[in-house]
C-alpha cells in the first residue's frame, strides 16, 4: 500500500511560536484520517500548509508521488487536493449555485471566455446542481450565499469543495457551529463520501471523529503525540493525559453539549 | 560642492520633517481606523491660512503660532463630528467620495474668505537672520528652528506611542485593527482624538511653512500626494515608518532636483541631460515608492499581508 499524502519534518513558526513542530504523517488512499487536539494545537495551521495557503518553514509534503511543498493553492486543487474552511468562506453576493458552478468552471475548460453569459451555461449548472443535491441543498440553489442559514452554509462549503473534483479533501471543522440535526445530516454525508474519497478531518466533535475515522492523530502544541486506529489512540495514556483527560469522561459522550 | 551637498541635505531634512508632521496623523487614521482621507492635505493648507490671518490680525508671530494649535484642533473636531464619524464603517469608496468633496469645499471656502492670491507671513526679527554653518556657508535660522520644532514633535509622538496607554492602544490597533474594539476601548473617542490631533499637526506644519513658502489654495494638493507616498513607503499605520520615509522622501526629492541634472551631465550631452533631469527629478520619489512596494508590498514598516 502506498500513501496518498506523506508529510515529513513539517515545521512552521509564527514569531517565536512553533505551531507545527517537526511533524511527520502518512495518509493512505481512501481512508479517513482525523486530526484532533486542544485549541491552539496547530490543526488549522496544518491544514493551511497542506492546502498551500501557508508555506512551511521546513519539511516536505508529498502528494500522489509528487513533491508539492512549493506548489500554490490553485495548483494543488487542480491535482485533486481541496479544502473546506472552518470559518465559512463563500462568495456572499453569488447564489449557492454560482458558488458551486465557479468551482466546476475552474476544473472544466478555459475561464478566458469573454462573451457568453456564464450563468446560462447548462453544463456548468448541471454539474453544480448535482453537487448541491449530494449535500442536500438543491432546493436553495438560487438563494444568495449570504442569505443561507449557518448549517446551509456549511453544506454549501462542502458542495463547493466537492465540485473541485477532489481525490483528497481537507475538512477544517465541517461541523463547527451546527445544531444537533444539522450535524447528524453532515456526519451521514461524510460517511457516504468516505467510501470514495480520502478525507483529512479536523473536528472537535468526538462522536463524529470516532464514528468516521479510520486513523486518528493527536496534535498538541504543534507536535504529534499519538497516531493510529481510534481504539488504540483512545486508550493511549499520553493522549488521555494531554487531551481527552481534560474532559474527564469518556470522550464519546463528552463533546456535544 | 561638498558645501552644496550639505546645504541640500539640510533642506531635504527640513522638507522631510514637514512631510512627517502631515503624514503622522494621516498614517494613524489610515492604519488604525482603516479610513481613506483625501482631505488631510487641505488641513495643512487651512493651517497656513489660519496662521496668515492670525498674524495679520495680531501682528505677533509667536502668539499666532500658539493660537493655530487650538484653532486646528477645533476644526479637526468639527470635521470629525460633521463628516468623518458617519463614514467609519462605510466602504473605502464612500470615504473617497466624501473626502474628495471636502477638499473642494474647504479649498473654495478658503478662496471665498481670503481670495485666490497667495498670502505671506512675515518672520519675527529673532528668526530672520542666518547662522554660519561650515566655512563660508550660512543657513537661515528659521529653517533650523523648523527642523528643531519638527524633531521635538516627533520625539513627543514617540514618547506618547511608546510609553503611554493611548500609545499602546494605537500600536495594538495598527497591528490588528479589530483588537482595539475587542479591548473594550471606545473606538469612536479614539478615532476622534487621533483625527483631531492629526489635523492639528498638519495645520501646524502649514503654519510653520507659511513664512518660507507663500500660502495659497493649491498648497494642500501637492503635499497630499507626497504624504501618501510617505505613508505607503513607511507602511500604513506606522508612525516610525512615516518618520523614516518622510526624511527619505524629503531628501531624495530635494537632492534629486538639484543633483539629478548635474549627475546626468556627466553621462549625456547638456541638452539631453537637462531634459532627462526635468523628467527624472520629480519622478524620483515615485520610482522610490514603486521600488519599495515591489520588494516590500506592505511598505518598510508595514505589517505583512501574508498571514
Amino acid at each position, binding site marked *: 500500500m502506498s500513501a496518498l499524502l506523506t508529510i515529513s519534518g513539517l515545521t512552521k513558526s509564527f514569531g517565536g511560536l512553533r505551531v507545527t513542530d517537526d511533524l511527520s504523517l502518512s495518509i493512505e488512499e481512501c481512508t479517513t484520517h482525523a486530526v484532533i487536539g486542544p485549541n491552539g494545537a496547530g490543526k488549522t495551521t496544518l491544514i493551511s500548509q497542506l492546502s498551500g*495557503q501557508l508555506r512551511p518553514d521546513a519539511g516536505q509534503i508529498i502528494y500522489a508521488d509528487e513533491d508539492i511543498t512549493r506548489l500554490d493553492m490553485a495548483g494543488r486543487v487542480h491535482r485533486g487536493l481541496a479544502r473546506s*474552511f472552518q470559518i465559512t468562506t463563500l462568495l456572499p453576493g453569488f447564489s449557492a449555485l454560482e458558488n458551486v458552478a465557479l468551482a466546476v468552471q475552474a*476544473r472544466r475548460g478555459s475561464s478566458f471566455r469573454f462573451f457568453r453569459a*456564464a450563468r446560462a451555461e447548462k453544463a456548468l449548472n448541471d454539474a453544480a446542481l448535482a453537487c448541491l443535491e449530494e449535500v442536500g441543498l438543491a432546493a436553495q440553489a438560487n438563494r444568495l450565499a449570504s442569505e443561507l442559514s449557518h448549517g446551509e452554509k456549511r453544506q454549501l462549503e462542502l458542495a463547493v469543495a466537492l465540485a473541485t473534483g477532489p481525490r483528497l479533501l481537507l475538512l477544517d471543522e465541517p461541523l463547527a457551529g451546527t445544531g444537533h440535526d444539522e450535524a447528524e445530516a453532515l456526519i451521514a454525508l461524510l460517511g457516504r463520501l468516505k467510501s470514495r474519497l480520502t478525507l483529512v478531518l479536523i473536528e472537535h466533535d468526538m462522536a463524529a471523529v470516532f464514528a468516521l475515522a479510520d486513523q486518528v492523530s493527536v496534535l498538541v502544541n504543534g507536535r504529534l503525540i499519538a497516531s493510529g486506529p481510534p481504539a488504540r489512540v483512545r486508550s493511549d495514556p499520553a493522549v488521555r493525559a494531554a487531551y481527552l483527560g481534560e474532559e474527564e469522561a469518556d470522550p464519546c459522550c463528552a463533546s456535544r453539549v | 560642492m561638498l558645501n552644496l551637498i550639505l546645504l541640500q541635505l539640510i533642506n531635504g531634512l527640513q522638507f522631510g520633517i514637514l512631510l512627517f508632521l502631515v503624514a503622522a496623523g494621516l498614517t494613524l487614521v489610515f492604519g488604525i481606523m482603516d479610513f481613506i482621507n483625501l482631505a488631510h492635505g487641505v488641513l495643512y493648507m487651512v493651517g497656513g491660512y489660519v496662521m496668515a490671518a492670525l498674524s495679520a490680525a495680531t501682528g505677533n508671530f509667536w502668539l499666532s503660532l500658539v493660537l493655530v494649535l487650538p484653532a486646528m484642533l477645533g476644526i479637526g473636531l468639527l470635521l470629525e463630528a460633521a463628516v468623518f464619524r458617519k463614514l467609519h464603517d462605510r466602504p473605502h469608496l464612500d470615504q*473617497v*467620495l466624501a473626502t474628495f468633496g471636502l477638499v473642494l*469645499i474647504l479649498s473654495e471656502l478658503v478662496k*471665498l474668505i481670503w481670495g485666490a492670491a497667495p498670502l505671506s507671513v512675515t518672520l519675527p526679527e529673532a528668526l530672520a537672520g542666518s547662522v554660519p554653518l561650515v566655512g563660508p556657508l550660512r543657513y537661515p535660522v528659521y529653517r533650523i528652528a523648523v527642523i528643531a520644532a519638527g524633531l521635538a514633535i516627533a520625539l513627543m509622538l514617540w514618547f506618547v506611542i511608546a510609553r503611554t496607554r493611548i500609545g499602546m492602544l494605537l500600536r495594538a490597533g495598527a497591528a490588528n485593527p479589530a483588537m482595539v474594539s475587542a479591548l473594550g476601548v471606545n473606538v469612536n473617542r479614539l478615532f476622534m482624538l487621533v483625527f483631531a490631533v492629526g489635523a492639528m499637526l498638519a495645520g501646524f506644519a502649514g503654519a510653520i511653512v507659511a513664512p518660507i513658502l507663500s500660502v495659497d489654495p493649491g498648497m494642500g494638493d501637492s503635499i497630499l500626494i507626497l504624504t501618501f507616498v510617505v505613508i505607503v513607503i513607511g507602511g500604513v499605520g506606522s508612525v516610525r515608518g512615516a518618520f523614516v520615509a518622510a526624511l527619505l522622501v524629503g531628501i531624495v526629492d530635494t537632492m534629486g532636483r538639484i543633483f539629478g541634472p548635474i549627475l546626468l551631465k556627466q553621462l549625456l550631452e547638456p541638452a539631453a541631460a537637462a531634459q532627462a533631469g526635468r523628467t527624472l527629478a520629480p519622478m524620483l520619489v515615485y520610482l522610490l515608492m514603486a521600488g519599495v*512596494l515591489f520588494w516590500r508590498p506592505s511598505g518598510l514598516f508595514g505589517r505583512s499581508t501574508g498571514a
Partner: protein
Amino acid sequence: MSIAKGAAPLVILGLTLLPPLASAAGDPFLTVIATRMVIFALAALSLDLILGFGAMVSFGHAAYLGIGAYAVAVLGGMGVTDLGLQMLAAALAATLFALPTGAISLRTRGVYFIMITLAFGQMAYFVFVSFSALGGDDGMALKGYSTLLGLPVLASGTGLFYVSLALLTLALIGLDRITRSRFGRVLRGCRENSLRMQAVGFRPFPFQLTAYVVAAAICSVAGVLLANQALFVSPAYMSWQRSGELIVMVVLGGAGNLIGAVLGALAIVGLEEGLARFSHHWRLGFGLILVLVALYSPGGITGMIRRILPAGRPG
C-alpha cells in the same frame, strides 16, 4: 443587475436626442458639453471594470486618457489621421504601458494598490511634461481632426458626438457581456473573496491583469476622442486630479454595475458645467453634493434609484 438592463437603453436614447434638442434650444454649446459627458462616461466605464468588478482601485487611470490623446497628436503629426488606426495605436500603447505596470501593481493590495497605481500615473505624467517635442508642460495644439474612412466626420460637433456615443454604446454592450461571462464571473469572484477563488483552483493574477489591460485600452479610446474635442493635448489629461475625478465619477454613480459609471460621469460633467454658470464658487456646492451623496446615499446614484424603485430587486 436589473437596473443596468433597464436604465442603459434609456440613458443612451436620452443622449441620442440631445443634439437636436440643443439646436432647437439655440444653444450649440450644449452639444459640446454632451460630448464631454459621453467621453468621460467612456473613461469612467472602463475604470468601473477594474474598480467595480475587480476591486482594483486605480488612482492612475487618467494616464490612459493621456496616452490616447497623445497617440492622436503623434500619429496626426506623421500624417496618419484615420480614427481607426489612431484608436488601434492608442489601445496598443495603453496595453504596452498597462501590462508591466499592472503586473507590478497587482503584487500589492488595498491602499497599497491605490498608491502604486498613482505612482505609475505620475511617472507617465512627468514623462510627457518633460517631452519638449510634444509641447512639454504646455501641451500642443493638433493640426486637425481625425478622419473616419477618409471623411471629416469629427470636424462637426454633432459628428464627434455621435461617434463618441456609438463607441460608448459599444463599450457598454461589450463590458456587459464580459462581466457576465466566465471571465467576468471569475473577476467578480476574486473581488468578493480571493482566498475562496484560490481554494477552488483559480489564480486571480491573470484574470485581474487582463481586466486591467482591457480597461486601459478602452480608456485610451476615450483619450483619442478627448484630443479631438479639444484639438489640443497636454499632460494635464493625465494628472492625478483627473484620475481622482474618474474614481469619483464611478463612486458617485455607483460602482460595479456599468451604468452607474456612465450616470456618474454625466452627473459630474453636468454639475461642473451647470454650476459654473451660476457662480464662480460653484465648487462649494459641488463638494457639498458629493459629501451628501457619500453620507446619505450608499451605492451612489444607482443605489438611490434602487431604493426608489425597489421592484427591480430579485428574490
